[in-house]
């Protein structure tokens, strides 16, 4: 196994990414308001957290470097890293597609409304992950969000955006 495919290498990459994030977060805290005569400044707690994160990230980085250095590529005990290769791994592609759908869902939540947005997203995901029974897809993806909306709207009196299906509320209220 190549060293770049091991868990130790994944940890190394994660440590570097985290260190960049932690430095960025720490720099942000320097811009927080300073309160005169305050025993603890608003920036103190986040700064301590950033430093704590940095300390353990550096420990992880050193651990990864040591295990990479000691590593025998032929050792059968080497733990492989999980794949995040978007180009080669179809599963990762599917995961990313679900993420894109979730982002679109948030963007269209108010316009389309909960029921319609949920029905579309649920139906696409079902198809994406291999469900091919169109009747079942349509039934489940429409009925579940509709039932949930009814429970929240009528029983729990939580008002959920219905977007273009807003007239449905009047219809239910009439019944």
């Amino acid at each position: 196994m190549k060293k770049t495919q091991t868990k130790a290498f994944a940890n190394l990459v994660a440590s570097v990414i985290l260190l960049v994030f932690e430095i960025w977060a720490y720099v942000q805290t320097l811009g927080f308001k300073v309160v005169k005569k305050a025993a603890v400044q608003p920036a103190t707690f986040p700064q301590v957290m950033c430093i704590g994160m940095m300390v353990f990230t550096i420990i992880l980085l050193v651990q990864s470097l040591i295990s990479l250095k000691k590593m025998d590529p032929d050792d059968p005990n080497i733990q492989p890293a999980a794949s995040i290769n978007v180009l080669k791994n179809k599963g990762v592609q599917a995961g990313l597609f679900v993420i894109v759908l979730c982002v679109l869902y948030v963007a269209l939540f108010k316009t389309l409304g909960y029921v319609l947005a949920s029905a579309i997203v649920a139906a696409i995901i079902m198809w994406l992950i291999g469900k091919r029974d169109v009747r079942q897809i349509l039934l489940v993806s429409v009925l579940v969000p509709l039932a949930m909306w009814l429970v929240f709207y009528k029983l729990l009196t939580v008002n959920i955006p219905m977007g273009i299906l807003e007239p449905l509320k009047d219809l239910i209220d009439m019944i």
Partner: protein
Amino acid sequence: MNWSLLFQSYGSVFLDPQVLLMTLLGAAGGVLLGAIPGMTATMGVALLIPFSFGMDLIPSIGLLLGIYCGGMYGGSISAILIHAPGTPAAAATLLDGYPMCQKGQAGKALSIAMFSSFCGGIIGALVMTFLSPLVANVAMKFTSAEMLMLAVFGLSVIVAISGQSIAKGLISAFFGMLLCTVGLDPTYSAKRFTFGVKPLYSGLQFIPVLIGLFAVSEIIAGAERIINGEEKQESSNEKIKEVLPDLKTISQIWPQIISGGLIGTFIGAIPGAGGDIAVFVSYGFNKSFSKHPEKWGTGIPQGVASTESANNGCSGGAMIPLLSLGVPGDAVTAIILGAFIMKGIQPGPTMYVDKLDTVYCVFAALMLANLAMLIVGCCGVRFFAKIVSVEKKILYPIILVISLLGAFSINKNVFDVGVCVVFGIVGWLMNKFEFPLSPILLALILGPMCEQNFVRFMDLNNGNFGAILGRPIAIGFFVVAVAVVLFSIWNQQKINKREAEARKAAAQKPAE
């Protein structure tokens, strides 16, 4: 203690058909609401309190306590079955509950959760009945110093729930604590990490983050596994002969039930601390003192029992300061306090003198609420366990749309749905890089408590942290926290050593 009045009050509660019906309805509603990710017991009580307006005090308290206890158990159903804790108090149940479900033991996990919840609730109710003035006195001695050290003690559990890499667990925990600082600073209202986004001023809401980290990330990973052909379809072939755990299982889990129930009751009695903290403390405590800590997190009954008894133990604990001091222990008891006041009763020390019969009736109602939760749970176990046999290709999208609705319903805010999705992505990436997610949760729960009490303590003592040495309870918590950390590190090293040996042995076997 006035025994004859106590028995009389228990009799009047247990023999009143209206109280019985209301408590049962409350428990059923609580279990169903708690099982929906995002719907907490607090929300259930708040939503259903209008139904109690027209009732007498005890039936209405029975209804509210039924929802409270039912909601506490209900949260574990979705944690066990779909890796999405229904309530924050069930967040630690998924650590062992979900792996049990993956092993085809969903029914067993559910029945253990139900039985442990019931026992924890009874322990809480018993402690409340016999020791409430005493526990309340200790709990009310808590100032910012004790609360700070209680938070530190809670955080010490992180090492125990970090898994293989303690460094990764601590990075997750510090990340969680950093997330708590997003929004306006609680003392001086200074903007922190808000980037001009107004919804961020009130900070990141716990429930959307919880749903994102556990439910949404699981759905993304599930889609990935299905496409790669790695997804295993759990079936409901598990035969559930008895809805309650058998004697063998009970003999395995009783120490965790008792310790969890007591930990839950004590933490519940501290105003501001509730089931969400108690479950992690109980889990960490029981794991640390287990003979086989390496088995925790792999799907063992003890893990489920330790957390579920703790969160229901809290229900009794939280009632202690409410009844004896008029101070609510958590959000639900704050609402229950409102119900008392609406009926013209002011809980507090005088209640034990003027309205002792009402106090005893409340004790009995809590006992009844736990019994009602057990009955509802027994009726539902077989049905709930069937959920896992729903085809994953259908189940995942359903969980997604229900979870996102749960995230929305907290503040009726689309921004929270966005937060939920963002943390779904974060959780998915963290799982890929094998960073544990539970420490983030614990940090999100304890972070604000830690910071607020630290700032308050430092302000009160003019920046002199050494003043904490004059607070014996706080020092006691700190010493226990250090002991838990050291013990957990030692335990984890033992686990890692055993696992390395097992891997080595497994690698040598095919070679032979």
